[in-house]
C-alpha cells in the first residue's frame, strides 16, 4: 500500500514515579520508509532512546507505553501478545544498543551466543548450515570466521560491537535500531563500524534508525533527521536541508553548539537546561530557553506541522504550508 516499513503514531511513554508522572515520550509520530536511514538526535533525557525501546516494547516498570500505535509492515506491535512480540524482535526489528559490546556473555564463545539467538527464534538449520551461516555473518561484519571460537575478552571493543551487529542481523531484520552504537569506540573504529553497518543495511535492504547526539555522525550516516526535545519530535527533514537551514530555534542552537575543526571558539553552548520531565513547562517545552519565544509559546504547545515539502516542525514561528501535501503522503508517493 505504501513504502513505509515502520509507522509510529502518537507514541506516549510515561514513567510512574513517586514524584509524579514523568512523560518521557510525549506523542511521537514518524514514518520510516523501506531502506531509509533515519537519525533521531537529542540531548540526554530527550526521549530518543525511550522511543526506540518503546518501539521494541522493551519498556520496563515503572515505565509504561500509555498509548500510540507502532506498525511494522502493517503489523500492530503494541497489540501483539508478548510471545509473538518476542518473535518479532530480532527477526523483524533488531536493536544494537548503546554499549552492546558489554552485553556479551563473558563466559561463552561468540559462536554459542549467535547460536542462542538462532535457536531462540526456532530457526531450523543443520549444524553444517549453522556453521556456514555464522562464518558468513562474521565475515559480513568484517571479522574472520575464527572469531566465532573466541571469548569476548579476546576481542577488542570494535570487534565486540561487530559481534553484536552480527547477532542483530542474524535473522535478516527489516528494521535495525542502532542506539549510539559507537559512542564507546575510538574515532577510527567508529568509522569502521559505521561503514560495516551501512554495508549490511544496503545488502539486507533494511531500514536503520540511528540514535545519538553526535550531529557529525548523523551528517555522515543518515538520510533524514528527527530532532527530539523533552519527549517530543520537534523537527524532521532531509539531513542536507536541516544542515543547510535548520528551522526550529532549538535545532539552530544545536547546530551552533558544534565544535568545529576549522574555527576556534565558534561553538556556543545552549543556555539553560532541558526542563525536568516531571513538570514540563506549559506551552512549548523549549520556550524557557528559546531566544525567539513570544506569548503564544508560553501557553499553547505547538504541534508538528508540515511547513515545506518534507519539512515538519513544531514551532509557532512557522505556519503550515497549505500548498504542500502532508509529509506522510509525500513519502507514500516517493
Amino acid at each position: 500500500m505504501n513504502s513505509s516499513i515502520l509507522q509510529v503514531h502518537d507514541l506516549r511513554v510515561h514513567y510512574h514515579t513517586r514524584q509524579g508522572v514523568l512523560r518521557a515520550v510525549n506523542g511521537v509520530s514518524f514514518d520510516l520508509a523501506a531502506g531509509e536511514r533515519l537519525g533521531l538526535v537529542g540531548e540526554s533525557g530527550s526521549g530518543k532512546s525511550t522511543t526506540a525501546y518503546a518501539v521494541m516494547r522493551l519498556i520496563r516498570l515503572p515505565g509504561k507505553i500509555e498509548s500510540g500505535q507502532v506498525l511494522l509492515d502493517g503489523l500492530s506491535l503494541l497489540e501483539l501478545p508478548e510471545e509473538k512480540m518476542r518473535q518479532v524482535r530480532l527477526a523483524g526489528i533488531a536493536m544494537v544498543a548503546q554499549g552492546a559490546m558489554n552485553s556479551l556473555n563473558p563466559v561463552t564463545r561468540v559462536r554459542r551466543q549467535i547460536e542462542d539467538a538462532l535457536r531462540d527464534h526456532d530457526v531450523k538449520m543443520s549444524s553444517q548450515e549453522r556453521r556456514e551461516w555464522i562464518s558468513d555473518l562474521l565475515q559480513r561484519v568484517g571479522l574472520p570466521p575464527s572469531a566465532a571460537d573466541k571469548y569476548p575478552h579476546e576481542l577488542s571493543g570494535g570487534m565486540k560491537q561487530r559481534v553484536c551487529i552480527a547477532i542483530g542481523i542474524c535473522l535478516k531484520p527489516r528494521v535495525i535500531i542502532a542506539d549510539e552504537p559507537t559512542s564507546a569506540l575510538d574515532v577510527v573504529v567508529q568509522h569502521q563500524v559505521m561503514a560495516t553497518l551501512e554495508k549490511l543495511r544496503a545488502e539486507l535492504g533494511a531500514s536503520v534508525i540511528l540514535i545519538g547526539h553526535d550531529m557529525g555522525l548523523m551528517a555522515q550516516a543518515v538520510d533524514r533527521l528527527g530532532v527530539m526535545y523533552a519527549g517530543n519530535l520537534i523537527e524532521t527533514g532531509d539531513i542536507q536541508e536541516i544542515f543547510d537551514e535548520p528551522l526550529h530555534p532549538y535545532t539552530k542552537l544545536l547546530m551552533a553548539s558544534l565544535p568545529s575543526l576549522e574555527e576556534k571558539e565558534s561553538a556556543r553552548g545552549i543556555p539553560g537546561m532541558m526542563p525536568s520531565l516531571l513538570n514540563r513547562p506549559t506551552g512549548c517545552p523549549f520556550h524557557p530557553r528559546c531566544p525567539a519565544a513570544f506569548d503564544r509559546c508560553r501557553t499553547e504547545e505547538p504541534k508538528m506541522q508540515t511547513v515545506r515539502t518534507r519539512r515538519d516542525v513544531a514551532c509557532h514561528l512557522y505556519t503550515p504550508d497549505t500548498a504542500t501535501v502532508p509529509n506522510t503522503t509525500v513519502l507514500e508517493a516517493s
Partner: protein
Amino acid sequence: MSALIEARHLTKVFGGGTLSRAKGVVALDDFSLTIEEEPPTITAIVGESGSGKTTFARLILGLTEPTSGEVLYRGVDMRKLNRNQRQHFLRDVQVIFQDPFEVYNPFYRIDHVLEEPIANFHLAKSKAQGRQLIADALTSVGLRPEETLGRYPHQLSGGQRQRVMVARSLLLHPRVIVADEPVSMIDASLRATVIDSLRDLNRQFGISLIYITHDLTTAYQLSENIVVLYRGSVAEAGDVEKVVKEPEHPYTRLLIGSIPRPDPRHGWGYEEKGADTTNSGVASLGCRFADRCPNVMSICREKAPPLYQTAPHRATACYLYADAPVAASSKLNDIFVPLSQSPQITPNLAAAAPVNGANGASAERKTL
C-alpha cells in the same frame, strides 16, 4: 620561569615481570613534558585507547609509579615529597577523570564530594558561603543546584555525574587541572559550555590544563599545543593549528580523516580497511604504526623514527620527514608555541576570590 610539574623520560611497562614469560606492554615510552609555573598553558594529549594518555595522567598525578624516569613537582621527585609539599601538591594539581562512576561513594549524597574540598581546604568562611560556592560551581557546568544537591550518585546520569566532578575542581582553583576525557560523556550541546568553563579557568584564574582526550575537535577548540600519542610514543606534536589543519604523521591524518564532520556534503575521510586496531602493545623494533601505515617503508620496520622538527613549532616522528632536523624528544616544550599574551588575570577577579583564588595563593597556602 620554573617548572611546576616536570615529567622526565617517563616509561611505564605493564606486566612482563621476571617471572612472567609474556613481554610487558609498553604503555608509555620515554615521554617528557613540562608544565611551567607561568604562564598558564593548555596542552592537549590526544590518542586512541591504548595510546598511553591515561597512563601519563596517572603518572603525573602520582597514582602510579613509572618503570623508569621521574615526575618532579616544584623540582622534587614525586616519590620524595614531604608531608607539607604533598599537601601543596594535592591542592595544586586537580584531576577530572574519564569515568564519573568510580569516583563516587554510592552511600553519600552528591553534596559530599563538593563539601569535602571546601572543608579540607577551608574555602568558605561560613556554611552559607560554602553553599553559594557549590551552587555557583554547579550552575557554571550547566546543572541546577536545587535538582542536583541532596541526590545520590545513582540518581544522576553519567553526564551529570561528570559535570559535578568538573564543578568540584572548579571549587579548588588549583594551578594545574589534568582533565582526562572530561566531556566524552557529556551531550554535544553542553560540551561547548564545559569547554568554555575550562577555558575560563585558564584565562581568568591562570590554571594550566592538561587536556587528555581522543576527540581532536575539542582538543583543537581548547588547546594551544597538542601531543598526538600512538601506543605510548609521540607521533606528532606542536602548534594545534598546524597539527589539526595540516596533519603530517599518517596516524594523525587517519585520526582527523575519521572524524565525522557535521556537514553532509563533506564526505567521511578515508576509512581504514580491515585493520584490527587491537593494541598488542608488545614492544617492537620499528615504528609502532608501521603495520597500519599506508606509507610504510622498509626502514619503518627496522628502527623507530625520531622526532623530526618539520617547522618552527611542530615535530613529527615519521621517516617521511627525515630531511628535517631531529628534535630532542625530551624537549617537547621547546617545540611548543609560547604564549604570546601574558595571562589575563584581571585584578578584580583576583581580588574577588581572595579565599580560593589561585593567584598569590601560595603565600596563603603556607598557612594551611
